[in-house]
């Protein structure tokens, strides 16, 4: 078991200041992200939670360097983000695996600069870590959605990044596989100590995973509230505190917790 909250002595990893993103469309400028400020510490697991279409994916794309901000700054280790970087890997939904490569080829994709032996060693290690032993030579179209997602996570981890960006990574999976994948992600996170930014629209998911939940408003996205999740892992989904936190967020977003 790890402590409820990792010691706050971790250095600041990510600093976002006055971030604003607007898209130009035919009908004028559409403001997607409005004046966001956020700090993330090293090794922290932060969920970005918001309704579909609120701009949280855009947010992650800007942090990852795929999109330039309209105003404001994104700094990592004090350095301005100017583009994508192998030290920080973006994990798409399982559709991001390369269909023309085997499981092995995908996981070793970012290891071009390593020696052959080192590459083989790392690939084998991460194949093992995500539980894909025996599928090394399989192609993605021969795998299930959950297995493809594992391949993508392993491909990201293989280059030993210090941050992972996950954009609703389990959104397309069935609910049982999704639960399994969450448990695995937590296990991997505890083993590898990456800083994780995890975008989701699933309140339960965010309470199960995160150290802190950044609750966003509808578009243009602003930070509505940041919720500290002071629960140890593994989390008991029927504990009073868990339900309290979950229901608090439901209320915050303005949903009665009844169907």
């Amino acid at each position, binding site marked *: 078991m790890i402590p409820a909250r990792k010691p706050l002595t971790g250095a600041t990893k990510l600093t976002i200041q006055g971030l604003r993103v607007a898209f130009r469309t035919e009908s004028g400028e559409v403001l997607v992200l409005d004046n966001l400020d956020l700090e993330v510490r090293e090794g922290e697991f932060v969920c970005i939670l918001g309704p579909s279409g609120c701009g949280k994916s855009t947010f992650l794309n800007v942090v*990852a360097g*795929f999109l330039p901000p309209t105003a404001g700054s994104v700094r990592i280790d004090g350095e301005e983000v100017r*583009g*994508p*970087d*192998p030290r*920080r*890997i*973006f994990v*798409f939904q399982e*559709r*991001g695996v*390369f*269909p*023309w*490569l085997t499981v092995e080829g995908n996981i070793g*994709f*970012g290891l071009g600069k390593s020696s052959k032996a080192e590459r083989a060693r790392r690939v084998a290690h991460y194949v093992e870590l995500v539980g894909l032993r025996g599928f090394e030579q399989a*192609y*993605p*179209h021969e795998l299930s959605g959950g297995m493809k997602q594992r391949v993508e996570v392993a491909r990201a981890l293989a*280059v030993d990044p210090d941050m992972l960006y996950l954009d609703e990574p389990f959104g397309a999976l069935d609910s049982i596989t999704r639960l399994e994948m969450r448990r695995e992600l937590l296990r991997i996170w505890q083993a590898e100590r990456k800083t994780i930014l995890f975008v989701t629209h699933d309140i339960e998911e965010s309470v199960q995973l995160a150290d802190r939940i950044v609750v966003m408003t509808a578009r243009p996205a602003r930070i509505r509230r940041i919720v500290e999740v002071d629960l140890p892992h593994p989390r008991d989904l029927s504990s009073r505190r868990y339900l309290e936190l979950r229901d608090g967020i439901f209320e915050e977003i303005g949903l009665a917790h009844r169907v």
Partner: protein
Amino acid sequence: MSLRRWGRILWPVAAGAVLVLVWEFAVRWTHTDVFPSPAAVARGFAELVRKGILLQYSWDSLRRVAAGYGAALLVGIPMGIFLGWRPGAARAVNPVIQLLRPISPLAWIPVAIVLLGVTDAAAIFLIFLASLFPILVAAMNGVRSVPAMYRDAGRNFGLTGSALLSRVVFPAALPEILAGLRIALGIAWIVVVAAEMIAVNSGLGYLVIDSRNAGKRYDLVVAAMISIGVIGLLLNFLVQRVSRLRAVRWGFREES
């Protein structure tokens, strides 16, 4: 072998046999003395084989296709990839491509003969033109429609420029490029016959027109036609095998 697998062979053979029978009886009942019976065509085949003409002419046709199609491949794939990769260049060149594309390769025959004479080169040039556009357009569209997610993933792992192109964009576009290659080969094989009827003095197309002109040998005309069909079928079969390779099969799932 199971009953079902027998059926898969049996029915096509039966359909072929029915066709030959209909042909045979059609010739008998109409008392035609122009159109040959299946037996006459078989004798024509034997004659062509015995004289070594069939092999020689098939080889000539294949050689021309290989040259013209090969050249189209060497020009079309890199050019298509470049245009797909650089949308600005594509916008500039696309109108010209779209204008040239619907012109039948046969309309180029006079131009080819004026420029290159009644030579092998003229026929090869026509095949080149006919195969170039499908290959070029397939490569361009293939590269253009590579999902942004793949490019982003590639860039995220530090790839740029030619490394991104060769390790992500090209393999992602390969199924569509192969589909274009397959279409182009079919067209090339159709065009070689037409080109040989006019621009040269050998090949299966020449055999068709020469057999008719030199004594109305329709048995040889039909034998040549069947040879053209069989070789075309084999070529298509070969390209189809390529699209079964594991690294590209993902892009052909609806076909398999």
